[in-house]
């Protein structure tokens, strides 16, 4: 009896280990690649190009860093970046709510989407397709919801924006 239970536990533990190995095989290169590329000047240039769009979502340029950290790394990993910036008070409470709303809808796009994308997928193409679908829907909803909130609140939602960009 004990050996039967023991064998069952061993078998399921092994398939659990195999499952995490399969996930790690893709996740590790993706996460390392993100850390290698994120601080590069190319990304900073793209980030600056996106800044005018942040205004439409009710956020000012200082929101870009916590937003990027949250979108790619997730709320828990990104907390290392998000919390210190929130404590510095460079971001007003209203903007912070916009950031929170955006990140609640769309965060950790590499990890969260991949974990679900690969289950039951028959080819790498299906995984990629489903990842794009999962991430795309979340990103679209995040932009729609934060943008909608900004429109709903009107100019009040963009008080920090009226002061103009704070960075040179």
């Amino acid at each position, binding site marked *: 009896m004990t050996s039967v239970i023991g064998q069952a536990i061993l078998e399921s*533990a092994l398939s659990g280990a195999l*499952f995490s190995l399969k996930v790690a095989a893709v996740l590790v290169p993706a*996460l*390392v690649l993100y850390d290698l590329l994120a601080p590069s000047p190319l990304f900073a240039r793209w980030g600056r190009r996106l800044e005018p769009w942040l205004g439409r979502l009710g956020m000012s340029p200082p929101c870009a860093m916590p937003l990027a950290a949250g979108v790619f790394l997730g709320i828990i990993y990104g907390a290392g970046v*998000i919390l210190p910036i929130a404590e510095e008070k460079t971001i007003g409470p209203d903007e912070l709510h916009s950031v929170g709303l955006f990140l609640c809808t769309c965060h950790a796009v590499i990890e*969260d989407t991949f974990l679900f994308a690969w289950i*039951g997928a028959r080819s790498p193409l299906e995984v990629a397709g489903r990842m794009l679908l999962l991430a795309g*829907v979340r990103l679209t909803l995040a932009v729609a919801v934060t943008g909608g909130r900004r429109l709903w609140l009107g100019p009040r939602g963009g008080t920090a924006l009226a002061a103009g960009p704070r*960075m040179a």
Partner: protein
Amino acid sequence: MATTPVPAMRVRLRRGLSRSRHTCWVLFRVTVPTFVAMDLLGRLGAIETIGRLCAPIMSLFRLPGETAIVVLLAYLVNVYSAAAALGSLGATFGQVTTLGLMLGMAHALVVETLVLKTAGARFGRLLLYRLVMSALVGWTASRLFIGAPQ
């Protein structure tokens, strides 16, 4: 921010690897016990019972009752345990897509809400928003990706 020095390639690589190692450790630590627990629960017939009890709620999303376990794990614990449970249950392409969208919207609610609270966001409203959004997205996705039950 524009004057922040770009860290050296080695520093970035080390940061990426340490983050990955942490992720893998969490993944492994969560997945193995989840697989074992799901297997034991399955043998005891508990998963079948939970499935029967939750079937009415999950049928709103055209999902089998057992997937309620996956949803609860995602909401309360994290996406790793939910993905592991879903992996051990097995599901169709449409079901996984629907669950992925639902749970992407709302997961690890306890920990993430605490982070948002610490950051000073209006966490109560955000929590409600996430749950409502999760249900709405799940309902819509189920109509798109899962065929009507016979």
